[in-house]
């Protein structure tokens, strides 16, 4: 059982965190598009938003855990040409930044009136005691734009992984599926 990363691949912890976030992000994207179309009398009109906010806050926690884990650990050796390595590095940086920006803008929509965000009714994430003019609208517009851009980048990121796995045959995707034997 390889929990930690090695130079040849990712450990179970990093793999679990990666796919947990991937699942969460796809779910939130779909739920987000769906919930804003629900009518007022839909039984899920309120619940869908509560669920979106709750999962969002949990993913924020996972995001922090993932970054901390990444810094505590060795990273597998990068593959590909120097240009590809650089591109991959920056796409990763942008993905992380966009995720945190999505958490922040989502938080700003819901807390614009000073209300806390209830996470599955278990804990409340309080509002910061400051709001700017039309906060819910501005944050909402940015949140929407970021969500679509993030999904676009995720597509690019996934396409690159598939290309590396099956065309370059350098095991990029396999490394994120299960830990690789040290070579």
């Amino acid at each position: 059982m390889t929990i930690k990363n090695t130079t040849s691949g990712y450990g179970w912890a990093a793999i679990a965190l990666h796919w947990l976030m991937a699942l969460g992000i796809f779910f939130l994207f779909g739920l987000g598009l769906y919930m804003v179309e629900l009518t007022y009398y839909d039984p899920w009109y309120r619940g869908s938003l509560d669920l979106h906010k709750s999962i969002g806050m949990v993913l924020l926690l996972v995001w922090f855990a993932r970054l901390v884990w990444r810094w505590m650990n060795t990273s597998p050796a990068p593959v590909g040409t120097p240009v590809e390595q650089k591109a991959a590095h920056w796409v990763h940086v942008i993905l992380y930044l966009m995720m945190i920006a999505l958490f922040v803008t989502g938080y700003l929509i819901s807390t614009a009136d000073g209300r806390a965000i209830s996470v599955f009714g278990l804990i409340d994430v309080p509002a910061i005691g400051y709001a700017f003019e039309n906060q819910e609208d501005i944050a909402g517009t940015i949140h929407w734009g970021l969500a679509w851009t993030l999904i676009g980048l995720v597509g690019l990121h996934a396409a690159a992984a598939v290309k590396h796995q099956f065309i370059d045959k350098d095991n990029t995707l396999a490394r994120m599926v299960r830990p690789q034997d040290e070579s």
Partner: protein
Amino acid sequence: MKKLLASAALALATVFSVQANAADYQIDVDGAHAFVQFKIKHLGYSWLLGRFNTFDGQFSYDAAAPEKSSIEVVIETASIDSNHAERDKHLKGEDFLNVKKFPKAVFKSTKFDVKDDNNAVVTGTFMLHGVKKEISFPVQKIGEGKDPWGGYRVGFEGKTTLKLADYGITYNLGPASTHVEVHLYVEGIRK
């Protein structure tokens, strides 16, 4: 040319001073002694209240000739505030006010039917959500007189009920919530 400008300025000054004599009032939005509030049934079980925080307006009023009164109020629709950011975001969006496309709601009076010293029915055009309609509703004078800071004030209130669908707002809030009550409370400072 100089002479022409001078006489034009004089003419303008005369016009404005005449208007001021006819008792023009600026609605005291700076001191927040005016409110545009609304009230709509929630599910038919209770009331939801909210207000528009940003608006401006003027009116003319003379106790000696109240039938000559007039009023104009311009409301910034994006200033809607129902004390719930997520709901306000929805209300400002395309399902309701569509504030990007229709940033202003405007009421402009055309007629005052005086009932007695303190009561009248005002008629005018109300533009909301890009739709203009003629509406009439009763208004009541609350009081008037000198304020303690050297000015002169008069205050009114009015209430009307609007059918949302009349203004092209058709989002289904349920059968009990098709109409919204709008309450206008204004205090004017004489110019």
